[in-house]
C-alpha cells in the first residue's frame, strides 16, 4: 500500500502563534455558547453510557452517575461529547495534512524502555488522569485553559497544582522518557 512513513513531516507551529490561535478558538467558543472547551467529560460519559447498558438500575441509582442518566437521558447527548469527536477529527486532519500521521500504529516512548512498558505506563497514567479529572471537575482543557481564561480562582489553583505535580513526578520516572 505504498510507503509506510512520511517523507518529511512539516515543522510544528510556533508555540506563541499556536497559543494565539488556540485562544481565538477558545474565545469563539465563549462567544458562541457562554462556556469554553473541555475534554474529560466525554470519556466519562462514554463510560457511564456503557455502564447504563450493562447495569442500568445500578447506574441510575448511583450518587455520581445517576445525574448523567436521570430521567432516561442519554449521557452521550452532550455538547462536550460532540466537541471531543471534533477534536479527534481535527487531530486526524492536522496530522495527515502535515505528514505527521503515523501510517502504521506507533508507540512514542523514551529510548530506554520497550513498547510494552510504555503502553502499561500510558494506561496507568491514564487511570490517574481519569480519576483526577473527575475529582477536579476538569482537566487541562476544561479547567486550566477554559477556567483560567475566565480567571476562575479554583481553575488557576488547579493549573498550578498540575504543573507542580508533573514537575515533582518527572525526576522519579526519568527512565520512562530519557
Amino acid at each position: 500500500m505504498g510507503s509506510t512513513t512520511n517523507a518529511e513531516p512539516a515543522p510544528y507551529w510556533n508555540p506563541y502563534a499556536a497559543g494565539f490561535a488556540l485562544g481565538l478558538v477558545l474565545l469563539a467558543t465563549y462567544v458562541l455558547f457562554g462556556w469554553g472547551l473541555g475534554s474529560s467529560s466525554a470519556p466519562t460519559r462514554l463510560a457511564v453510557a456503557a455502564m447504563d447498558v450493562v447495569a442500568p438500575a445500578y447506574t441510575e441509582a448511583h450518587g455520581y452517575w445517576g445525574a448523567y442518566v436521570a430521567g432516561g437521558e442519554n449521557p452521550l447527548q452532550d455538547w462536550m461529547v460532540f466537541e471531543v469527536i471534533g477534536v479527534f477529527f481535527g487531530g486526524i486532519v492536522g496530522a495527515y495534512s502535515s505528514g505527521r500521521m503515523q501510517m502504521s500504529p506507533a508507540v512514542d516512548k523514551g529510548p530506554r524502555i520497550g513498547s510494552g512498558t510504555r503502553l502499561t505506563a500510558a494506561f496507568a497514567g491514564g487511570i490517574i488522569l481519569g480519576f483526577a479529572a473527575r475529582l477536579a471537575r476538569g482537566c487541562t482543557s476544561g479547567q486550566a485553559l477554559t477556567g483560567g481564561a475566565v480567571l476562575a480562582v479554583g481553575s488557576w489553583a488547579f493549573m498550578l497544582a498540575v504543573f507542580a505535580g508533573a514537575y515533582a513526578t518527572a525526576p522519579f520516572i526519568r527512565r520512562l522518557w530519557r
Partner: protein
Amino acid sequence: MEPGLVEVIHGRHNPMIDGAHGMHVWGWEVPVYLFIGGMVAGATILLALYELRFKEKPTSLSAQLVPWLLLPLMGIGLLALLVDLEYPTHVYRFFLAFQPASPMSWGGWLVLTVNAVWVAMGLGSLSATTQDWVLARSGPVAGVLRWAFDMGEAYRKPILWTALAFGVGVGIYTGLLLGTLVARPPWNTAILPPLFLTSGISSGAALMLLMPLSDKEQHTFVRWDAAAMAIELVLIVVMVISFVTGSAADQAAGHVFLGGHHMPAFWAIVVGGGLIVPLLLAGFEIAKNRPLTRLSPVLVLIGGFTLRWIIVVAGQEASFASLAMAH
C-alpha cells in the same frame, strides 16, 4: 423479502394504543441489511467500472477476490434481516412468485440473483496465476473449474455490464425499500435511492481501500470514492433543503436532520466524520501524494452505517399518523 414485516406494517399504528413511540419494529437489523446491501453494490459497481474503463483486470489479489467476498457479506446482511422477521421460514414463499409492480419483489429477486452474478464475475477476475493455484488444488473438479474459468473470461464484457447493472439496481433498491414499506415522511423522499446508491459506492470503495491494493487500484478508488462522497454531500444538502421548504410532512421528516436528538449524530458522524473529513484527507492525499491512511475508510464506513441507522430509527419516530394528531 419481508413477508413477516408486511403483517405488522399493515396493521394498526396508533401511538395511543401501540406505545408512545409508535411501534419500533426495526432496531439494528434493517440498517445492517441496508448498509451491507449498499456496500456490496458499490464494490460491484466500482470493480466493474474499473475493468471496463482500464480494459484490464485488477492486479492485486485482494481486488481479484472481492467478488467472492461479496457473497458471504451479503449473506450476513440477509441473515440480519431474517433475524428480524416474525416468520423467517416463510421467506421461501417470496420466491414462488414475481410481482413486476412491487419493488419488494424486484428486490428479493435482485438480491438472490446477484450472487450468481458475483460468481460469474469472480470466475473471470482471477489472474492466470491465481487460477493455476486453484486448479492445482482442486483435484477431481479441476476440469469443471477450468471450463468455468474459461467461460468467465470468454463472456467477461457482458458479465461486467450485468454486474454493473445489478450493482446499480441493488444500490437503488436499498433506497426504495423503506419508502415502499411504510408511509413515513423521511422515507418517502425521492432523494433516498440516489443517496443510498452514492453512499453505497463510497462504502464499497472504503471496503476495498482497507485491503492491500495495487498503486493503480488505490489511486483510482480514492478518486472515485472522493467523487462519490462529494456527490453524496450535494445530495444531502439538496435533501435537507427540500425538507425545510416542503410541506408539513416534509418538515416533519426534516426534523430528523435539523432538530431532534439525532441531528448532532447526523451532522457530526455522517456528514463530518463520514464525508467531510475523508474528503479533506483525500484532498491532501491527491495534492501531496501521500499514502492514504486506513483510518479514512473506517470513518467512511462508520458514517455510512450511521446514515442508514438514523434514517431507519429516526424515521420511525415521525409518522404521518402523528402528523394527523398534531392537527
